[in-house]
């Protein structure tokens, strides 16, 4: 291109520092993976409505269990996944809808460092080729020209390309004596071939990330995990991005190497003014490197705020549980752990209300059960969870067929579930009689024991015909010093669920429903009796601290008790 180009006035600096506008704004972002089943399955809701912003130059941590959608979120931010709904505004521009050359151009600004250094580098290319490839793809350096200090429109003639980009490689300054200067990152005098410039740039990048120049011609095979990760970082930095997604960049590395890589990342951030999204499941790493943290669970951000504050004083029940899992360095410190039961629900079928409702230790209870025994309450919750799981369990074609025909399926044995979930107990009088029987066995009075037992079982309403066998069994077990087991056996066989009567009634009714094959009615019955706002409504993000920290939990509403005190009471 040799004709003259009208160059744009240099007013680019102004929008670079446009106040405190965040670099990345995520607004209602959803990323779903389509189901691939025969029956048009529900999509996997990997990211299910997320809002947050990343300020310029900060490091936002993204933590959560595996499978909570944090990697998908990171990949969506660099357009490796297509967002299903919502917006990601990068410098104010929605990048979820970019395509073609605009997408390619934007890709220079946002890069990603992958988790697995084994898989992220092509083994058949030399390190030099790997790091250089992004430069080739974007025809770096573009040798575009910017004009500075012009008080009126100027014309510049040459082989350059007019640009309104923020950091042109060549700048013509027409104040006073016109001068041309080359941007710092372009390492050599202009006039050399682009290929040479790129190679020089690659060598500089290698040096920047702490590799030696002679590594240029080596193959990734010849490097350790930490070194490979450094190569990956060099590749991500090649195009001078503003924003880098770090997808668990150190989790595959040795602990001693982790620290080095983390320090490198911090140095690079300082040197190049990078903005990071740091995805991790290692909380101590996050605490070390991040300015702010977002905690994710089941495709939702549960809590987001300043790192120290969030770690010191978590507000959201999930954050609280997650942080209590960090081992304490002080072995003498007494700390109560919150152990979450079960596993997260499938993202294919998340709960209708709060995503954490199925496992939340401080879930809001209906008023009449506020004072219910914690263990009994927990058992009911587990039963509900089991029924939920059964609903979404993958059913094979034959199982579907058997169900339609009213035949037995592997889903039908509710009694086993009940026995597994609940403690069993004989009626009070019967329990007392069993106590006496056990005492008698200990004293060697088997005849007395037999009497007490028969009495106990009759109270419990046992069938006369099999009482004798049960009694013999009890005496034999108790005689072997296994009184506990003997009693459990009697309870399992003749007892009922060990719940307060009001709860037991609903549970038994629900079990009856399942026995008749109507699981939907059972779920409905349990939900009506035991459900609360947590099951029914999605929470909102409530501001929980002056620094702008927000938490996604119903308990922050005025009418409910906040999570903190409830936890204190629980532990």
């Amino acid at each position, binding site marked *: 291109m040799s004709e003259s180009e009208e160059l744009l006035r240099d007013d680019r600096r102004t929008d670079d520092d446009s106040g405190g506008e965040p670099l990345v704004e995520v607004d209602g972002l959803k990323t779903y993976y389509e189901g691939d089943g025969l029956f048009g399955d529900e999509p996997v809701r990997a990211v299910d409505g997320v809002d947050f912003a990343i300020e310029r130059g900060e490091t936002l941590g993204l933590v959560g269990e595996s499978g909570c959608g944090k990697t998908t979120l990171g*990949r969506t931010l*660099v*357009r*490796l996944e297509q967002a299903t709904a919502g917006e990601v505004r990068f410098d104010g521009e929605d990048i979820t809808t970019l395509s073609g050359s605009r*997408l*390619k151009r934007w*890709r*220079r600004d946002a*890069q*990603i460092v*992958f*988790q*697995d250094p*084994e*898989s*992220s*580098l*092509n*083994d*058949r*290319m*030399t390190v*030099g080729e790997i790091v250089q*490839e*992004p430069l080739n*793809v*974007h025809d770096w350096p573009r040798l575009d020209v910017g004009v500075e200090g012009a008080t009126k429109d100027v014309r510049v003639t040459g082989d350059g390309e007019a640009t309104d980009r923020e950091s042109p490689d060549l700048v013509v300054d027409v104040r006073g004596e016109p001068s041309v200067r080359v941007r710092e990152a372009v390492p050599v005098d202009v006039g050399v071939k682009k290929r040479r410039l790129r*190679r020089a740039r690659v*060598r500089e990048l290698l040096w920047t990330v*702490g590799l030696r*120049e*002679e590594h*240029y*011609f*080596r*193959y990734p*095979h*010849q490097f*350790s*995990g*930490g*070194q490979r990760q*450094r190569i*990956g970082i060099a*590749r991500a930095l*090649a*195009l001078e991005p503003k924003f880098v997604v770090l997808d668990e960049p150190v989790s595959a*590395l*040795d602990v*001693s*190497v982790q620290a*080095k*890589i983390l320090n490198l990342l911090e140095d690079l951030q300082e040197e190049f003014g990078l903005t990071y999204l740091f995805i991790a499941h290692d909380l101590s790493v996050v605490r070390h490197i991040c300015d702010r943290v977002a905690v994710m669970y089941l495709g939702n951000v549960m809590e987001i705020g300043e790192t120290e504050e969030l770690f010191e004083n978590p507000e959201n029940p999930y954050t609280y549980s997650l942080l209590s899992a960090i081992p304490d360095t002080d072995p003498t410190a007494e700390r109560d752990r919150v152990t979450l039961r079960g596993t997260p629900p499938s993202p294919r079928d998340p709960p209708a209300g709060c995503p954490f409702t199925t496992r939340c230790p401080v879930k809001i209870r209906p008023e009449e059960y506020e004072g219910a025994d914690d263990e009994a309450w927990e058992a009911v919750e587990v039963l509900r969870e089991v029924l939920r799981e059964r609903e979404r369990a993958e059913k094979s074609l034959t199982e579907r067929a058997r169900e339609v025909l009213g035949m037995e399926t592997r889903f039908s044995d509710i009694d086993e579930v009940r026995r597994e979930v609940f403690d069993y107990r004989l009626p009070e009088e019967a329990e007392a009689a069993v106590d006496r029987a056990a005492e008698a066995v200990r004293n060697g009075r088997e005849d007395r024991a037999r009497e007490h037992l028969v009495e106990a079982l009759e109270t419990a309403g046992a069938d006369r015909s099999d009482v004798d066998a049960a009694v013999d069994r009890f005496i034999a077990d108790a005689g072997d010093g296994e009184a506990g087991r003997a009693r459990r056996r009697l309870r399992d066989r003749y007892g009922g669920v060990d719940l307060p009567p009001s709860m037991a009634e609903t549970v038994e009714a629900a079990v009856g429903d399942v026995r008749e094959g109507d699981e939907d009615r059972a779920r409905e019955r349990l939900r009506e009796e035991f459900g609360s706002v947590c099951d029914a409504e999605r929470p909102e993000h409530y501001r929980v601290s002056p620094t702008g920290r927000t938490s996604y939990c119903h308990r922050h509403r005025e009418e409910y008790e906040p999570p903190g005190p409830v936890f204190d009471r629980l532990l």
Partner: protein
Amino acid sequence: MSERQTHTDEVPLGDRIAANPRPAALWVAGVALFVLAEFGAVATVAVDLLAAVAGAVAAVAGAVAGPGPVAPAIGGTVADLLASARGVAESIPTLLSRELVPNQGHKVAPDGPWAGTFLGLPPAVAWGLRVLLVYAYLFGFLYWVWYGYRLFVEHYRQADWTPRDDVVRRLRGHRWGQFGLVVVVLFVGLALFAPTVSPTTYERNVISPYEYEIQYLEEGSGEVQSIAVGDANLQSASQGGSDPEYNTGPMEYDDFGRFHPFGTMANPGGDLFTFMAYGARVSLFIGLLAIGISGFIAATFGLVTAYYKGLADLSVVLVSDSIQAIPAILLLILVSVIFSDHWLATFYNGGLLIALAFGFIYWPGLWRSVRGPAFQVAEQEWVDAARSYGQRADATMRKHMLPYILGYLLIYGSLTIGGVIITTSALSFLGIGINPPTPEWGRAVAGGRSYVATQSWHIALIPGVLIVLVVTAFNALGDGIRDAIDPQSEGGEAATEAAAAGGGG
């Protein structure tokens, strides 16, 4: 300083050679010697290729311009030019030619020396010498290429190690694969140098045996007489039975002083070795063309389906399943019959047609075998990385995926080429596919079928054994390549290396 420079800056190969020209110059001189020895043949092939291209261009031009006086005139001039160029090229003496070491001649007396052969040697010795020369040349040339690669690694490569080094190392320790390689080279040599290694020529043996005459020593009268090649072939044909008069077995002379390394064929006779050598050309042509076509389709579809997945994958699955559902032999028979009068069938008496049909039939199988590896590679994060910095889809497939499936293509290609050869032979045995007079191994087996239990067993047995040997060799070569690039052992090594390194940042 210069030491540092060589480490860091990527110097173009030309500059690296200029810095240390001796090994490269030596090697190029060696190559020049090899080319010089065969310059006439190389020039002839080049002229033929030019002529073919010119012919095609003229045909297209004629079709475009319509009938006019200009195109034929120019075409004619070009044709004349090429014809004279060919004459010149043919007149250049070459090392590996029948003229330099002739083996056709006759005795001047019952115990006397031979006339017309190389240095008066017996035809068998002269022929053996020529074959030896051909293969020495071939293996010498291959060694020189290998030596060149070693020179490059030692003097000019900037990387001190590449993944290919491991492949080469594993292949060097693989005896079974090396056996395959040697036999394949022998087979390819046979096809490539068919005019030179044959005891007689294609022209005399197959095309027009009655237009040539040979001289021979009549045993009874002790006089040298002339006879048409066709008649001599007829009289020396192997016809079974048990009378040695009606058979010319392997490594025997016939009554006309001609040496037959593999014996002669059934009526109308002719040299079996010559037939086999030219048949090898046909088999190799069909095999390579078929594998080339199906390999190209398979690689393209493999990359596209693995990269885009979903609908692209599903549609190729459907298409390939439909093709695989067609019985291959039936399809081939159908194609040979339907296209028997088509212009496609005129090349190699149906050889090209068969090769195209094979390419169409075999790609689904090849695609199936590279689909898995392609999907595996597509899942690697470096493919995502390429996408994240905006690499084009086709470049990603070429740079980041293709190198990983090329090995599989090589393996399955070499395994399939054996299948192609054997199926071609089967077709010719059935009397379809490649029609006479183009020689094909399967037809030799068919022709000798009725003599298997007689003294003329060699007609069917030798081609049969050779088919088995060549197919086995291609399979062995495939095994060797697979073991050499086996990702399993490669991955295992990488894992242990990483474990041993234990980080180190």
